[in-house]
């Protein structure tokens, strides 16, 4: 019985060591890229290692590494508690869109002023 406990502790310790070795070798920049790409999350604040577990995947041992992704996501509610806006990246996208529209409108206004001046100038 005690042997079993000793054996279990030894395996657990070896497993922890193995997880730690794998964790240390992981390229975190790649992990961030992967999360951004696969999950569509931009503007991640931090990615922290949480835990590792040994599992079997297709009859082969794999280490399941859990990470905690920290991201500041403001949600906007009206005074009745209804969600108004979802997330910062959505707001940014919308702001960019508004900005682009404003730029186009400004271009258009300048062009219109030029067109009007051009019309009266041509018939001078």
């Amino acid at each position, binding site marked *: 019985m005690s042997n079993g406990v000793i054996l279990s502790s030894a395996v657990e310790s070896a497993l922890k060591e193995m997880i730690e070795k794998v964790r240390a070798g992981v390229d975190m920049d790649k992990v961030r890229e992967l999360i951004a790409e696969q999950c569509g999350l931009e503007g991640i604040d931090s990615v922290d290692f949480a835990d590792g577990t040994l599992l079997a995947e297709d009859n082969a041992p794999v280490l399941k590494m859990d990470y905690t992704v920290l991201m500041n996501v403001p949600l906007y509610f009206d005074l009745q508690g209804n969600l108004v806006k979802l997330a910062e990246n959505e707001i940014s996208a919308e702001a960019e869109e508004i900005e682009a529209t404003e730029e186009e409108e400004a271009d258009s206004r*300048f062009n219109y002023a030029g067109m*009007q001046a051009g*019309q009266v100038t041509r018939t001078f």
Partner: protein
Amino acid sequence: MTAVNLAAALALSGHKTLLIDCDPQGSAAFYAGRYTSDGEKNLLSASLGQKPLNSILCGSCLDYLKVISAPGERQIRAEEQLLKEKKDSLFRSLVSELKTGFDFILLDTSPDTSPFTIASLCAADSVLIPLQCEYLAFNNLGQTVDTLKWVKKEFQPHLKLAGILLTMVATNSSATRRITAAANKHLNKALFTSVIPRSDKFQETPGYRKPLVLQDHTSPEAASYMELAKELIERERFFTAQHQPTTITGDES
């Protein structure tokens, strides 16, 4: 600003030039270094026969540049009724008389439609419109040209558009970029290829009572006015095969 530096550039190019200050503020004559401080010697008093024509011509900082001062607000107000009634003819005969002694006569007007400004426009053969590279100025350009068309239709059928000059051009400004693009697209030949850059020097040089083309003659700003003078001379040669003296009115937009 434009009229004074252009007048000086024309004079430096060897053309006998007369600058008539038609803005009651009197800045142009001051900036050009007019020698007299006699406010009674101006276009209006000579047109009314109160002063002989040769007495209103003043010297300046350049031999080839003569200046006529602007009448003051009080004098203009006193003659307002006459200016309204005779705006089409009041200055014309006098300016015509002055043409015999000059290659170019520039009338520097204020950007309004007062009887005095209209009377000045009626004495002009062609109009140069300085256009600041700012949206509001650009947006009003159509209205300015429309007013000039009205003057042409009602009073001065020979009035021509010498061209539109982009001023205060800042290459890093989005307004300049947009105005340049729209102006090139829609104004076409009416637009001078010369442009006047935005520069703090234009705020500083009036204090020296010398046009920038003299005060800092090697500067890019001075070069831009020399280019403009060259272009204007070419345009006027195109307009008048025999190179008759020409009057230019600068109507600041």
